[in-house]
Structures are given as structure tokens and as C-alpha cells.
């Protein structure tokens, strides 16, 4: 409500909707908060904001505005807040409390699972609520990693057993040799002959350990630091020059052929090591009068290095198994070696993200090393780093379990030619 009035110098109203000058209103032109008791028509009591000024002829002009609406608005807002906001805050706090409790409970459950895993229960998995939230995504990811670790562990254990077995054989032989030598040797020469044979046995045991360490080193993924552009043609020439004389000494025809191929991204030293192992095998298993061919050619996806021989070959059902550590085809048991050459090759191939394919050379066996000009994924090293962080508890676990468990028949490394993973 707006008030405006003009008063005579004696205070009597001349015009406007006010009957009196509001009590306490000073005519200084400033706004004052005063109380109004009546208007021109009604007797009321309400607070107003008013300003007054005395005109030059002594009359007084008053303007004012009621502020009751504002006060009531203030009251309404206050009430609304009391009714709405406080319960809402309460609700929010309760919800928050509940949610954080929920999260805490899940973290606790996860922690308990982790505790159990740390204590050595590799079959334990993180709990999944199947509500597809972030927790579930995380838990699923970790569970996949745990599954991978579990299978690696089983593999490590299987390998451990194989190591024990393959080391025990030469060591037992050496021991028997030395024992017999001590008791039976009649001359110094006898003793020297026995010692020489014992040293050969120990050397073989040592070559197994060296090869295993080498595989571990390659698999740890650190060797990616040695990656660069590799000229396969030049490399094949060099390996050919290295192994040519060996084939010749065994009366094996040795043909090296190289087609122009692009550079590949890899570690030259490791690739040569892989090729040397394959050539080693090819020459070792090919009888005199046979042939070994060694070629590099361009393939659809990248260069292919192919090594084939006219040896006994590898039966199709054993092709996946030859990459397994220590695997020996029965026919080759008598041939000397650590039995780990192909495992080293496989480790190198995996590091490079290349493929190796075991085939039939009719007769004989062929190994195809398929290189890819650019690496197909860079995920591998990250995964390996994660695994490396997890290795100390795992090795503790192995030490802890190693003596008491025997998993019996284990499935081997799930390697099939072409999907070496």
C-alpha cells in the first residue's frame, strides 16, 4: 500500500490518504521506519517506511509504503524453511550415512578377500554385487587378473615340478657316477674319466637353470628397452653364416633365402637368439643327408621367417605341446639339450607380439615366425608390471605351499600354434 499526503503547517490534512502525520516522522527527507495508526478512511496499525519534507510555505509532504507484506513474506519463508529444509538435510545425511556404510561394508568385504588372497588362498575372488556399479567393474577387473595369476601360478608350479624332475635326473646320475667312481676307480685315469662325465652332467643341470633364468628375464618384459628397427634380411644372413658350417659338418644341405622385407620393430639380439634356437633344433633333429631351409619372405601381415627341416617332424597332436617347458617328444629323449629352447623362443615371440606356427614340412617340421611391422598392442607390458608387483606375495605363497601340495595331473600351458597366449 502506498501512502501520500499533504499537511497544512498546523498538521491538518489538505489532501492525500493520511489523516495524521505519522508519529515520530521527522521532516528531514530521509526514510524512517514508523508506525501508522490510521489512514484517511480506516483506523489501522501497521509499520511503514515513510519520508517527509516541509515545503517552503510551511506545508508538509509525506510519502510512505506499508511493509506488512514483506514481514509476512519473511515469516512464510522462515516457516517454509523450518518445514522443508531441515527434514531434507536430515534425509540427505541419513542417505549419505547409509551409502557410506554400504561402501565401507563393501570395502571391508574386499579387504577381507584380499587378506585371504594374501594369506595364500589363490582361489578367493573379490565379491561382486551384480549391480553393475563402479565397484563391480573394479572387482571384475581385479578378478580377471586374479584368474590370470592363478593360472600362471598353476603353470609356475607345474614348471617347478618339471624343473625339480629335470634337475633331479642329471644330478642323480652325477651322484651315482661319483659314488661308483670313488669305490671302483683303480687308476687316476679312471677317476678323471668319471669326473669328466660328472662335470658334463652338472653342466647340463646348469644349462637348464640358465635357460630358465633367461626365460624369466625375457618374460619380465624389461627387455623391451632394447627395441629398435631390425633388418630381418641382414639378420637372416648373419644367422645363416653362423649355422651354415654346422649343417655342413653334419652333411645337411642348408639353404638360406631372403626376399626384400620391411624393417620390423623388435630387439635384434633376442630375435637372433630365437632364430638361433630354431636353427639349432632343425640341425639337431635332421639326420645326415637331410636338408634345412631358412628363409625370410614378405607375408600379408608382415615378414615371415620360415625354418623347415627334413627331420622326424612333430605329430599334429604334439604341436601345441612342444612349446611347453621341458616338453620332449619321446623320439627325441636321447638328444642332448635343456629342453627349453622352444620355451625361450616362445617367450621372445610373446614379448614381440609376434606369432609362431608349427607346421608340417612333409617330411619334417617347419616353424614359421610371423612378424608384424607395428606392435598390435601395448597393453602387455602394463599387465606384466602389475604381475611383477604381485610376484613377491605369490612367491611367498609358493614357498609356503611348495612342500605340501601336489596338484597332480595339471593341464599344460594353453598354447596352440598361432594363439600363443
Amino acid at each position, binding site marked *: 500500500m502506498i501512502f501520500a499526503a499533504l499537511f497544512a503547517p498546523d498538521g491538518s490534512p489538505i489532501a492525500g490518504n493520511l489523516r495524521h502525520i505519522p508519529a515520530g516522522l521527522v521532516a528531514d527527507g530521509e526514510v524512517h521506519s514508523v508506525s501508522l495508526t490510521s489512514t484517511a478512511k480506516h483506523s489501522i496499525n501497521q509499520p511503514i517506511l515513510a519520508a517527509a519534507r516541509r515545503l517552503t510555505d510551511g506545508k508538509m509532504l509525506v510519502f510512505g509504503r506499508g511493509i506488512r507484506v514483506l514481514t509476512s513474506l519473511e515469516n512464510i519463508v522462515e516457516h517454509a524453511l523450518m518445514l522443508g529444509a531441515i527434514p531434507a538435510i536430515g534425509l540427505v545425511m541419513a542417505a549419505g550415512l547409509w551409502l557410506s556404510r554400504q561402501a565401507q561394508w563393501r570395502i571391508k568385504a574386499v579387504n577381507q578377500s584380499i587378506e585371504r588372497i594374501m594369506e595364500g588362498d589363490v582361489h578367493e575372488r573379490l565379491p561382486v554385487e551384480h549391480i553393475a556399479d563402479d565397484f563391480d567393474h573394479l572387482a571384475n577387473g581385479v578378478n580377471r587378473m586374479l584368474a590370470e595369476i592363478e593360472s600362471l601360478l598353476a603353470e609356475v608350479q607345474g614348471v617347478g615340478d618339471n624343473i625339480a624332475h629335470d634337475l633331479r635326473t642329471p644330478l642323480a646320475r652325477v651322484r651315482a657316477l661319483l659314488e661308483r667312481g670313488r669305490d671302483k676307480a683303480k687308476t687316476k685315469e679312471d677317476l678323471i674319466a668319471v669326473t*669328466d662325465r660328472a*662335470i658334463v652332467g652338472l653342466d647340463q643341470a*646348469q*644349462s637348464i637353470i*640358465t635357460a630358465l*633364468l*633367461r626365460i624369466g*628375464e625375457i618374460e619380465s618384459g*624389461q*627387455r623391451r628397452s632394447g627395441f629398435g628397427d631390425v633388418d630381418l634380411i641382414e639378420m637372416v644372413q648373419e644367422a645363416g*653364416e*653362423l*649355422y651354415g*658350417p*654346422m649343417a655342413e*659338418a653334419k652333411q645337411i644341405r642348408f639353404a638360406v633365402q631372403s626376399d626384400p622385407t620391411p624393417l620390423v620393430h623388435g630387439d635384434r*639380439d633376442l630375435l*637372433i*637368439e630365437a632364430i*638361433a*634356437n630354431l636353427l*639349432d633344433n632343425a*640341425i*639337431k633333429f635332421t639326420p645326415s643327408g637331410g636338408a634345412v631351409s631358412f628363409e625370410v619372405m614378405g607375408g600379408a601381415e608382415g615378414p615371415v621367417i620360415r625354418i623347415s627341416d627334413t627331420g622326424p617332424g612333430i605329430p599334429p597332436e604334439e604341436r601345441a605341446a612342444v612349446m611347453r617347458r621341458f616338453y620332449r617328444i619321446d623320439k627325441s629323449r636321447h638328444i*642332448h*639339450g*635343456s629342453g627349453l*629352447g622352444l620355451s625361450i623362443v616362445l617367450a621372445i615371440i610373446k614379448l614381440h607380439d609376434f606369432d609362431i606356427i608349427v607346421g608340417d614340412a612333409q617330411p619334417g617340421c617347419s616353424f614359421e615366425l610371423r612378424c608384424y611391422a607395428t606392435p598390435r598392442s601395448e597393453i602387455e607390458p602394463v599387465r606384466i608390471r602389475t604381475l611383477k608387483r604381485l610376484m613377491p606375495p605369490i612367491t611367498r605363497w609358493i614357498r609356503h605351499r611348495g612342500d605340501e601340495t601336489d596338484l597332480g595331473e595339471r593341464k599344460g600351458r594353453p598354447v596352440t600354434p598361432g594363439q600363443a597366449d
Partner: protein
Amino acid sequence: MNFDGNTNTPVVNEDISEHLFPTSRARILLIEDDPEIAEEVTNELVDRAYVVEHVATGPQGGEEARRGRYDLLIIDLLLPGCDGFSIIQDLRRDGIQMPVLVVSALGAVNDRVRGLKVGGDDYVTKPFALPELVARVEALLRRPLDTRATTLRVGPLELDLIERVAKREGRTIELSKSEFKLLEYFMRRPDRVVTRDMLLEDVWHYRFLPQTNLVDVHIGRLRRKIDGPNEEPLLLSVRGMGFYFREPN
């Protein structure tokens, strides 16, 4: 002298140490914490007339290396109290230049590279064969003949480093690339035992050991070229050790 079945390389069986290890009486400091290995190494080296001082801990070793006048240091990388890397580093920083042979169970390439980087001159991985260690000690004590001549001459054999052909008493011997490298390596180290590992590392630059008798095959081929049927053999095998190129008296 008889013949090795594999390679037809003459094998030396008589005691050749006097002939092959003329740097004997060199003073060697051995820093090794394993008492048994230390004893074996010491005995082997003393048998070959080296003077060996053995200390078992790193700090003692560092002190002794500074105090005594040694021609060679053999050091284990994994020592109680401190690691071998830092000892070598400290010695090199203090300007001590004696050759260092690093011995370690750490066979990984990175450790090997690190060992050589901090100032080691050669690296042997445990477990090692004693002859391997001795051959490397000898190699370090006698650096290869570093001649700027374009022709190497040892006894009746001449190697033209530019034309890459060898000559023996007027007979010209054509060599393949790897045969040339191999022969050059031997002729720069006459009368010194060279092991298979050393050849693989230094001639072919391989850090891995082929499982077959690869080195022997190459040596056999080279020998058939340089040693004619009625000539005195120059390239000899030393049983259990490796090979050496003999300089006739």
C-alpha cells in the same frame, strides 16, 4: 697330443699352464663372501702362480684395494653390508684403474650392463667353471695386442687386416667374414686360452649360449684352413677350457 672327436682339433693334455700363463705372479685381490668359492678360486689361482689376497666383506675389500698394489680385482656383486657396484664406482672415482672382473649370481643382462658401466671390465656369472674364470683373469691381465699395423703376424701365419686374407708360408688362405673375425681374435691373443663363452661374446656378440657345439664347428673349419696336413697345428683345443693359438718358439 690326441684328437677331439667333435672337431678334429688337436687337444693339449700336457700341463700347459707354464706356457700359457706367463703373467703369473700378478697380484690379485679377491672380494668374495662365500668361503668355499673363495677357497676354490684362491687355490686355482695360486696353483697358477698368481699371488692372491682374499677379503670377505665389501668395506674391507675397498680398503685393501686402495692400500695394496694389485694388478687385478675380482669382486662379487652381492656382498654383505654393501654391494659390489658401489665399491667399483668408488674405486674408479678415486682414480684406481686396475682391471676389475665382476663375479655374480645376477646373470640378467641389466646387471651385467650395470656391472660393466660402473667400471667393471668383464663379467662372469655364478656358477662358473674355474677355467673360465682363469681365462678371463688372464685376458684382463694381458690386454690384446693393439697394433695399428695392417698385418698381424704370429709364427708362420700372417693376417692381412685390409684384404682379409691369411697367408701361411706362401699359401694364401681365403676366409669368410666370421672366420676372419675369429682368426683376428686369436692372433691378437697368441698363447692365451680363449673360452667358448668369450668367443661367443666377443666375436659374435651373443649373450646367450647355443646348445650345440657351434663354436667348435667354426673353430674346426678355421683350423682346417690354416693348419695344412703336414704343418704344425697352430689352433689348439685345451680340454675343459677352450682353445688357444700357439705361437711357435
